[in-house]
């Protein structure tokens, strides 16, 4: 477990230090929401009705654009060999990478979400369901992303392939995330489904991610 913690701490530190671009994801998230609002028009009622869904879509896009850097640097400098060869349970290391990705991209995005929600005129009583659904659902994005970026890490310009591989698989997360965030009678069962998807992703992501990581080695 110390290796797990070391990987998480290292990746998070790298993301937030100079050149890591940790806060750029948050900027992207705010910009995406801004562009959605520009496309929809300034009508406050329309914005209020779609705010929760827009924020979920923006959070998903923020995760997708940051997937390619999960294993890229390690692959370029060769340290991914060490990551694979020194591990007893490679799945745990992939889980650590996904955790670090979530801490350095989705968590800052969730922290920025209340401000963007304010801009989009989200009703105040919808804020807590939105934040709760993001907290429960976004880990699934990082977990599926760990698999996608491990699969494509050896390729140049892998970004689009990672998006193509992960986006269809993340569709259920977005569906239940947006339903849970919008509230109403659907909110509670959707939140439970969302939690189930995240737990399932915690198995699929690391297991499949470790498998493709090994294949990309030899």
């Amino acid at each position, binding site marked *: 477990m110390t290796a797990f913690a070391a990987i998480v701490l290292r990746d998070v530190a790298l993301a937030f230090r100079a050149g890591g671009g940790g806060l750029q994801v948050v900027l992207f998230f705010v910009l995406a929401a801004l562009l959605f609002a520009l496309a929809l028009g300034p009508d406050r009622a329309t914005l209020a009705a779609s705010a929760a869904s827009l924020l979920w879509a923006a959070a998903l896009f923020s995760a997708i654009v940051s997937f390619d850097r999960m294993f890229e640097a390690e692959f370029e400098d060769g340290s991914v060999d060490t990551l694979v060869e020194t591990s007893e349970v490679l799945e745990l290391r992939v889980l650590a990478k996904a955790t670090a990705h979530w801490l350095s991209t989705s968590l800052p995005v969730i922290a920025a979400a209340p401000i963007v929600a304010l801009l989009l005129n989200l009703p105040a009583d919808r804020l807590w369901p939105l934040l709760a659904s993001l907290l429960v659902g976004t880990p699934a994005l990082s977990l599926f992303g760990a*698999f996608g970026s491990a*699969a*494509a890490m*050896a*390729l140049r310009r892998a970004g689009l*392939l990672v998006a*193509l*591989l992960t*986006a*269809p*698989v993340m*569709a*259920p997360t977005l*569906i*239940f995330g947006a*339903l849970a965030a919008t509230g109403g009678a659907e909110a509670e069962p959707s939140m439970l*489904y969302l939690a189930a*998807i995240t737990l*399932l992703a915690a198995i*699929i992501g690391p297991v*499949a991610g470790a*498998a*493709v990581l090994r*294949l*990309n080695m030899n």
Partner: protein
Amino acid sequence: MLTEFANPEKFERIARIAGPAATVAALACAATGLYFGLVASPPDYQQGDTVRIMYVHVPAAWLALFAYVFIAGASVVGFAWKHPLADVAAKSAAPIGAVFTALALITGSIWGKPMWGAWWAWDARLTSMLILFFLYLGYIAVWEAFEDKGRAARIAAIVATVGVVNVPIIHFSVDHWSSLHQKASVFRSDGPTIDPAMLTPLLIMAAAYMAGFVGLLIASMRNEIAARRLARIEAARPVSEVLLQ
């Protein structure tokens, strides 16, 4: 039986007969199925003649799902036993399955125009077909992306496995998300609710699509095997010979 087909020579000997035979069977079934479907079956009491799109639409959707499960199954065989023909089968089935998915989407949208008054409705099954289409494209893209075909095969195998695990979840979530479409009427625990006069041509058409899938798959696999053999021969030629050409 599996190890029997690992030898490309043996496969070729059987495929040379089985492939065209499947294609002929597909054409025969399609001819009978279309006759019964378009001429000899009654129009629907609500949908009228529009219901006849069902005979080309529903089997395409079945085959689209079947081909993806087939790819995942072949991938597991290829991955676990390093069976060379299983990889070829999985790779060859992908474009065929993608075409069936596209066919299901297009015929579904043509069916939707008179039924919903729009070319596209975000109905559960059309939407999950669309997501399935992207799963196919992602799988094909992996094969394209890696130059080393051995590595491509193994990574694509895992991509297909992850995809097939997610297909029921995607289907369930999309079903939950939308509820416009009519409920399933053939695969139900209390037996099909569809009239036998319509069910028979539908099943004949399903057999035609299935035989067509097998025929195309075998042709495509023979192509792939020949292309690989050709690539090996090319690679083995001495440089002087290539330069002199």
